[in-house]
C-alpha cells in the first residue's frame, strides 16, 4: 500500500504541483481545499502524512494541525506546514500546535520529496 498524503491548500496550482510531484514518486495524494475539508476527510480515513498550507479561508493550517493532534489516531502522524520564509512566527505557532515541521515556500519538487522522506 502506498502511503497516503493529505495535501491541503486553497490554491489549485499548489495542490496540483504537490500532487504531481508526490504521486509521481508513488505516494497516494488526497487533496483538500481548506482545513474544514481536510479535517472532515482525516476523521474518516487513514492518512500517513498531512501537508498543509497556513493561510486558508474557513480553517487555517495551524488550526487544522491543532484539531488533528487532538484526535487519538493522529497523535503521531507527521504533519508538515507549508510556510513562507518571512513567517517565523507561523513556524513557531505551527510547532506549538503540534506540527512535525515545515516546508518553506518556494520549494521545488526535490525539496518536497526530501522533506516527505524525512518524516516517513
Amino acid at each position, binding site marked *: 500500500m502506498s502511503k497516503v498524503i493529505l495535501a491541503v491548500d*486553497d*490554491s489549485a496550482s499548489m495542490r*496540483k504541483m504537490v500532487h*504531481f510531484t508526490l504521486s509521481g514518486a508513488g505516494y497516494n495524494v488526497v487533496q483538500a481545499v481548506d482545513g474544514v475539508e481536510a479535517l472532515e476527510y482525516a476523521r474518516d480515513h487513514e492518512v500517513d502524512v498531512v501537508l498543509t498550507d497556513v493561510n486558508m479561508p474557513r480553517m487555517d493550517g495551524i488550526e487544522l494541525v491543532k484539531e488533528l493532534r487532538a484526535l487519538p489516531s493522529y497523535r503521531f502522524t507527521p504533519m508538515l506546514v507549508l510556510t513562507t520564509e518571512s513567517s517565523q512566527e507561523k513556524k513557531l505557532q505551527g*510547532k506549538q500546535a503540534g506540527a512535525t515541521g515545515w516546508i518553506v515556500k*518556494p520549494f*521545488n519538487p526535490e*525539496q518536497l520529496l526530501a*522533506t516527505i522522506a524525512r518524516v516517513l
Partner: protein
Amino acid sequence: MSFDAEMEEIHKIFFEESHEGLDAMESGLLNLDASADRETINTIFRAAHSIKGGAATFGFVEIAHFTHDVETLLDEMRNGVRAMSSQAQQLLLQSVDCIREMIKAAQAGGAVDVQRVAILNESIKDLLASGDVPLTPAPALPVTEVDTVPPAVETAAMPLMNVEGTAASSPVPGWIIRFTPHEDILRTNNEPTRMFAELAKLGPVIADADISAVPALEDLVPESLYFRWTLKLNAVVDQRRVQDVFDWVDASSKLEYEEVSARPAASTGGVGTAAASPAPAPATAPTAAPKAAPAAKAAGDTSSIRVSIDKVDSLINLVGELVITQSMLSQFGERFDPGQLERLREGLSHLSRNTRDLQESVMQIRMLPIGFAFNRFPRLVHDLSRKLGKQVELRLSGEGTELDKTVLEKISDPLVHLVRNALDHGLETPAVRSAAGKDPTGTIELNAYHEGGSIIVEVKDDGAGLNKARILNRARERGLVPADAELTDDQIHNLIFQPGFSTAETISDVSGRGVGMDVVRRNINDLGGHVQITSNEGRGSTIKIRLPLTLAILDGQLVRVGAETYVISLLAIVETIQVKADQVNRLPGGVELFRLRSEYLPIIDLGQQFGIGRDPSTSCDGLLVVVESDGRRFGLMVDDLLAQQQVVIKSLESSYRQVRGLAGATILGDGRVALILDVPGLVQTFEQRALQAEAASAAA
C-alpha cells in the same frame, strides 16, 4: 503527461487563480470603507499571499518579488499595525493592476513595463519604511481609523533557539551538539534518530546517549522520551547547515552548538558531504520551474471556459438517457413488428426530448454570469469619479444572470462606454446636485434580468437626464434632422445614437469624442440586440439593452415569401396582421405606408427586397409582420406565416460572404436552407433605397 506538459498545465491553473485572486483583491480594496470587516482585509491578504507563493514556486521571480512587498503591507494592515489610508489603497490598487500586467506578460510571453514596476515597488517600499501612517482621506473614501503602532517586530531572521558558539580546541574539527529533547517530542513525530541520520549526511557522527533520566518501569510513559544526547559531527560545515537538521525541533527542547576548531575560518565546506542535504533552503530559487515557463506562452488569450461540475454532470446524465433511448430504438430496428408502432412513437418522442434537453444543456455550458462583465465597474467608477470630482454610488444587481460567453465578451465594451457616459455627462457634480435639491452622491445602477427569452441589461443614472433642446439644436446644426421636423421625446433621445453626435461642451479624456453612442448601438445590433434610451430631464436616464441569450441559436418565426422560407427573430417581431390592399397608402417615390392604429408603418416588401416573386394571389393583400428596429416600427410583407421554432444559426460569411439584410442561414428539418433576416440591416437598406427613389423622383 510529460513533465513539461504537466508544468504547463499547472502554470495555467496558477494564472487562472491569480487572475481570480487579483479580482478578489480589487473588489476587496474597493470595499474597504468604514464598514469593512476584518475578513475583507484577510481575503485581500490571502490572495496576495497565494500569488506570491505560487509565483515563487513556479519561477516567476519578478512577480514574487513585487508581490512580496504588497503582501508585507497588507500583512501590517491585517495585523492592525498600519491603517488603510487612501494613499495606501490607491497604491494597492495600482499594484493589483501591475501584478495583473506581469501575470499577463508571463502568460503570453510578453514584456512588462519594468520601469513602472520599479517605481511602484519603490513607492510601496517607501510606504513600508514610513513608520507613521499617512492619513489623507479622500472625500469619497472613508478611512478606517486605526491607532498608529510602530511597525511589526523585525521578522528577518529571528533565531529559533539560543545558540552558543564557544570555540574549544579539539583534535578533530567539527561540531559538538548537545541535544536535550522535550519529553513530548515523539508526539509530533519528530524522531531524533531521523535527525541523526540527517546529520550523518554532513559527515561522520558519534552519538553519546545519556539515559540517566529514564524512570523506573512503572513510571515510564512509553510515548515520552527520556534520553539526551551529545553528538559529535566530524565535519567542517557552516553552523546553519547543522542547525537546519534540528530546524523542526521545538523551542521547549534544548540545543547547544559548539564549534570544534582551532582555526574558526573553516568555511571551506564539508568536502562534498552535504550535497544531498534535503533541508529546506529558503534562499534557493526553484530550479525546476523556470524551464517550463516559456511553455505557458500563448496561453494569454485562451478561449477556454470554466464550467461548473453541475453543468457537466447534467450533460453526462442526458447523454446517458440518450444512449438508453438509442438502444431502445435500435431494438425495434432489428425485428420490427407493426404492432409496436405506439412504442416506436414513444421512443421517438423520448429521443426528441433528449435532444432538446441535451441542446439546452450544451448551450448552458457556454453561459456565464454577467457578473464577469460587471466586475470591472466598481474599479472603473471609483477611478473615474475621483478624476471627475463626483460622488457616485454604484449599485449592481442581477449579476448572476447568465448569457452566452461571446455575447458577454462583446457587451463589455459598450457597457463601459455607457457607464462612462453616465458618469461624465449624466451625473452632476455634488455642488450642482445639492443646488438642485438632490443627494450630492449620485447613483449609477447596472441591472441584468431575463425578459421574454432575452436578456435585458440596464444602465441607469439619477443625473441630469438628456437635455432635449440641446440635442435637437445639435442635431439640426449637424443636419441630422430637418429644421421643421416635429419629433417626439423618444425620437429626440434616440438622436444621440446617430453617428457623429456629441453635445459635450468640452471634450474630456473620459468621453465626449462623439464616437461613442453610435458605436455602442452598432455593437449591440451586431449581437442581434437593440438599445433604447429613456430619459427624464433633471431626473436621470435609463439605457436598456436587449440581448439574445445566445448567438448560436435563435427563436425564429418562419415565413414564406414566394417559394422561399425566411426566418425572422422573434425578438424583433411586435405583432402580425392581415392587411387589405386598400389599407395601404402609396407615397410618391414608391414607399408604401400602412396605418396601424395611430402610427404609419413603412412597408418593406420582402419579395421586392430580395428580387423574388411573391404569390400573385397575395401580392396586394398579405400578411404584415410588424418589426421594431431602434425604436421604430416597420411592416414586412410576407405570403405566409409558418412555424415558430428554434433555429441554429450558420454563418453565411464563412461559406459565402456577408449579405446586407441577412444575419445568416439555417437548415430546416427537411434539409432545405432558410435565410435568417437581419432586421436592422434590412431597414437600413430599405431606407437608403427609399432616399434614392425620393431623390430620383424629385429630380424628374
